């Protein structure tokens, strides 16, 4: 023969505490739902306790969890999902921007290197340097 009890537990002062005990499942669940709706406690649950007289074993299982706890868990999960998604999007955007910036820098460098004005200036400088060098050499050779 088995003895069944339904314990309502309330979460208060940072821990689960037994609130009341029933042998009527319907009454226990009704009272637990009422307490949950009242919102006085941050958590409400109903534990079914079955005592088997033959084996002298007691088995317990939670048959009700207050919606406040369930909703809170669901909200936290949803927030976490949203945060993870936002972080992934931000990372992807940052990576894309990095690639774009690298391309822009490379293009700018390429443009800079192939600029005709720059090439003409470079050529002019070399030519001017050559002329100055030749004139210098001529002066030196005339003196000695």
């Amino acid at each position, binding site marked *: 023969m088995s003895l069944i009890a339904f314990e309502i537990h309330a979460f208060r002062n940072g821990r689960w505490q*037994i*609130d*009341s*005990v*029933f*042998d*009527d499942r*319907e*009454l226990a669940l*009704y*009272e637990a*739902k*009422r307490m949950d*709706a009242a919102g006085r406690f941050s958590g409400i649950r109903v534990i079914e306790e079955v005592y088997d007289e033959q084996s002298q074993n007691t088995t317990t299982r939670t048959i009700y969890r207050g919606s406040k706890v369930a909703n809170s868990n669901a909200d936290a999960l949803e927030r976490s999902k949203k945060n993870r998604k936002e972080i992934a999007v931000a990372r992807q955007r940052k990576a894309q921007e990095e690639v774009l910036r690298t391309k822009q820098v490379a293009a700018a460098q390429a443009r800079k290197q192939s600029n005709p004005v720059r090439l003409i200036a470079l050529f002019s400088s070399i030519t001017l340097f050559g002329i100055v060098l030749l004139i210098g050499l001529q002066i030196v050779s005339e003196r000695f």
Partner: protein
Amino acid sequence: MTEAPQGIERRLVYRVLAYWRGVCGERDLPQRQEFDAAGMGEMWPHTCFLDVAAHPRDPVIREIGEILGGTVEGGVVGCPVSAIDTKTLLGHAVSYCDDVLAKRVPISRGGEFINRRGLRTLYRSILVPLSSDGAQIDMLLGAANCREISDL
């Protein structure tokens, strides 16, 4: 608010529990003085008070309502729980007072028994703890009702 299935809110044990909770407010345990006939109304005749302070091992019936008292023969005020006839509603209603003292919370039990007239009787009962100082349980409030089933 959750919808009441099959009139749970009309049940005596539920009404007594709700009344006890209301008196408790933010406290864990209310005082004996906060329960009276005027406040409890129709519940009052079904109730009894067990004195625990003077008799912690075998509480004594201190007061009993008219209807619950009518389920036992003779006067029971002053009788210890162990002396109450177990074939009566009162006997069943107070039989688990030790559990209430151990757990310090309301406990409700129901079931059936064969009464002194040989009739199958279904009952529901509740015991709730009371305290003068808000810490030590010195009284228990019990309430119970029953109906006989004649199809045995």
